[in-house]
């Protein structure tokens, strides 16, 4: 757990990647997150989160198809690594345990 260092925003992006499956590329992730968070995000923030996570080994990626709308440039489809899945699980557990440990909730 010590070494993972997954930021809050990164975690959201990572989860979105998992959700979107084979549709997980930059703009789609941006759309999905914007909808869920109800705020607008910049291409830069998404992209830098993706690149950072790729470097840390949470994501792998490969080129997908190119579309007219993208001016003929290929998409890059991201996929979460097993390691990422494990880290996400761990985080979820830690959070759940913490929630469970809040005294007010526990007694009610």
């Amino acid at each position: 757990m010590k070494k993972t260092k997954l930021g809050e925003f990164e975690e959201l992006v990572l989860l979105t990647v998992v959700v979107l499956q084979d549709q997980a590329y930059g703009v789609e992730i941006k759309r999905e997150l914007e909808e869920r968070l109800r705020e607008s995000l910049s291409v830069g923030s998404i992209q830098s989160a993706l690149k950072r996570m790729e470097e840390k080994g949470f994501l792998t990626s490969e080129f997908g198809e190119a579309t007219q709308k993208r001016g003929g440039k290929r998409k890059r489809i991201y996929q979460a690594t097993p390691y990422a899945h494990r880290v996400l699980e761990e985080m979820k557990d830690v959070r759940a345990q913490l929630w469970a440990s809040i005294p007010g909730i526990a007694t009610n």
Partner: protein
Amino acid sequence: MIQPKTPTPPRWSLRLLRLFIRKDFLEEIEGDMEEVFMDEVEQYSYRKARRRYNWQMLRLLRPTLTHNIFNSQKLNYYGMFKHNILVTFRGFKRHKLTFLINLIGLSTGLAASLLIYLWVTDERSVDTFHENNDQLHWVMTHFQLPETMVTWNYTSGKMAENMKADFPEVLDAVRVGNHFFRPRGVMSFEEDNFEISGLFASQNFFDVLSYDLFLGNPETVLSNKETIVISRSLAEKIFGTAEKAMNQTVAWENTLFNKELIVNGVFEDPPTNSTQQFEALINYGVLIDRDPWADRWNGGYAQTYLLMKEGTDMNAFNEKIADYMNIEERSTGRFTVFTRPYASGYLYGEYKEGVLTGGRIQNVQLFTYIAIFILLIACINFMNLSTAQASKKMKEIGVKKAIGAHRYALIFQFLSESVILSVMALALAIGLVSLCLPQFNYITGKTLELSLSNGWGAIISIVLVTGLLAGSYPAFYLSGFKPVAVLKGKIAGLKGEEWIRKGLVVVQFTLSIVFIIGVLVINRQIEFAQNAPLGYDGSHVVKFERKGSQTADPLPMLTELNQIPGVTSAANMAGDFLWGQDSGSGYSWQDGEEDDNHLFKSPKIGFNLIETMRLEMVAGRSFSREFNDDRTKIIINESAVKLMGLDDPVGTKLGYSPTETREIIGVVKDFQYGSMHQEIEPMVIRFREWGRNFLVKIQPGTEVNTLDQIEAVYKKFHPKYDFEASFLMDDYDALYDSEDKVAQLSNYMAAIAILVSCLGLFGLAAFTAERKTKEIGIRKVLGASRVAIMRILSKSFTGTILVAIVLAIPIGYFAAESWLQNFAYSIELSWWIFTLAGILSMLIAWLTVSFQTLKAARVNPVECLRHE
């Protein structure tokens, strides 16, 4: 907001993105950006989408996505760069002489080129300030004469409106009065009089040409014949401010009309790089009222400028209009109409037999070459001195290579050294230029200035090119040394190196000697033209023009002038004596034959002019009051006698028209009419009593006093006008003004070229002497005299310069020969010019080298043999 068919993201933003984003992310991110952009174009306005794209772009600039400028790999470059600069400056410090020679040479060369660059750009900018310069064309005509074809830049006044109506590609057409038909005279307001020069113009003048209307309604200015538009400086001169000038009435009495006019507009003064200069504009209709020929097909009164549709094929258009004048009611079928780009007239203005032969462009080219050559000479200095000092750098190169320096790193080092030097030279050159600019402006008659607006980009690129050129040879040569050989002290290919060095010196001196030859020839020719026998005596002849109304009898003024004690003789004529263009045809000297088409040079003179100018009569008599001579009498020159083949010319009557004849009353000896650019041609001197140009010969020594009295007489007859007189021979000299400028400029440029070459030679001599120190020491110990030492040291230079002389003479000969082609009468290119140039360059070279050789020869052998 109208949407273009394919929305595109902002260009600069896209460029920024491509520049900064890491290459391996670029495709993905660019695609993402584009997709988002396309979504947003649908969602918002095109403009907003572009704005948002820019914003998104800026937010992409974060360290994870951009390539890192400060990453450790690049730091190495910075270190190398720092090291190079350090080594460069250490080098400068250690080899002070070389450094100074290079710096002085390069900065002088750069300064000379900068001056020329300023001048050339200024020359090229003339008349290009019109907004639609690309679409602006000037209608010209070739006119076929029996033996020759002349080219005019003026046309019929009808041309403009007819062309506009006939050709759809002509968007608009302007006509203005040509240079013969410009109103020049005195404008009066209340008690003040101002002499001004105006221009007749059609109403659309301001629409088509980019002269700015400062005050006044563009719709109404120039729309009628009772109003006038004046320049801002004139308005300020007359009325104090431009605003006060509006709606005032001024009186204008000039060569063509005398009228009261209401000022209904003020325009900004034409820029200095406009060839058309005028202080007032008036409707062209005024000229038509004065002279109906101004609006007829067979009157050449107007200049016609066309505004063409964008992208018109001018060659095709010229084919279409070639025969535009050759319609029955228009002319006699001897015209060829064509157009040229409006602004090109200044540089390409000379036509011979209907073919463009050049014009000022020749000077522009000449000086461009001179600038390039001077820079080349300065660069050669740098190359020579750096390769000469190669031996000193060898250890450095060897060590660097041995510890793993790439060849490219070394090339980069040497190039940066030369670029640093040339940047330093630029700083010095800019100082020099600002020092010399006033003098340079005085010579060229321009008002150039070194300001931010005139092309720093070009100047910087000149510097970079200079630096790279100068550094290229040493960089590639020195960096190619083999480290092992160098460190062992073996220097490969010294022989070849010496050859190249000598070759470069030969190039330098060849150029310098060509310059010397050019300067000698130009100066000789100008001196020749100004002192050649002209066939008349123009000394002490004062020339002035009577102004105002054209119909004033010159006799009373002539009589009064003749009464002044200091006046030897006074006369008048129509047209300028020095103009040399007045010509006429229609004389026939043989019965029945079609020989009346020869175009004679044909000045129109009054009584007493031949005597005043001391023209020599070969036969017959000159025009005289006693014989009551009139227009039916003519005098011809010897060339005309020869042309007509008359045995006894005096008394011969030439046919002039079916009803008229012209009687030859005298033959005058050939004389030069106009400048030496023209040949002496057959001439028919016509008689005009009413000429406006006065020529007054005064007694030598009484100039000041007599001129005052002439002025008094002039003022009596022309109270409103200033007396503007000049000496005829001063005006004659001014005919060679452009050559004079070329001569003066080339004198300076040649001096600079020679100076820079000598600097290089000086440096090389110093180097040779230094390298031969030991040899000199040993020779001296063994008893060699100083003279012997000096001979040894200067021997190789003498050979080099001799080769340069041999090369330069033919080049100089052809260059001088082609320049002299511009003159009808020119000096012979005699051998002594080339000999002199050769001897001069040899002397200069020896003098330069002798400083060093003398120093070397005088050295005490102990000094140079002590260290080992």
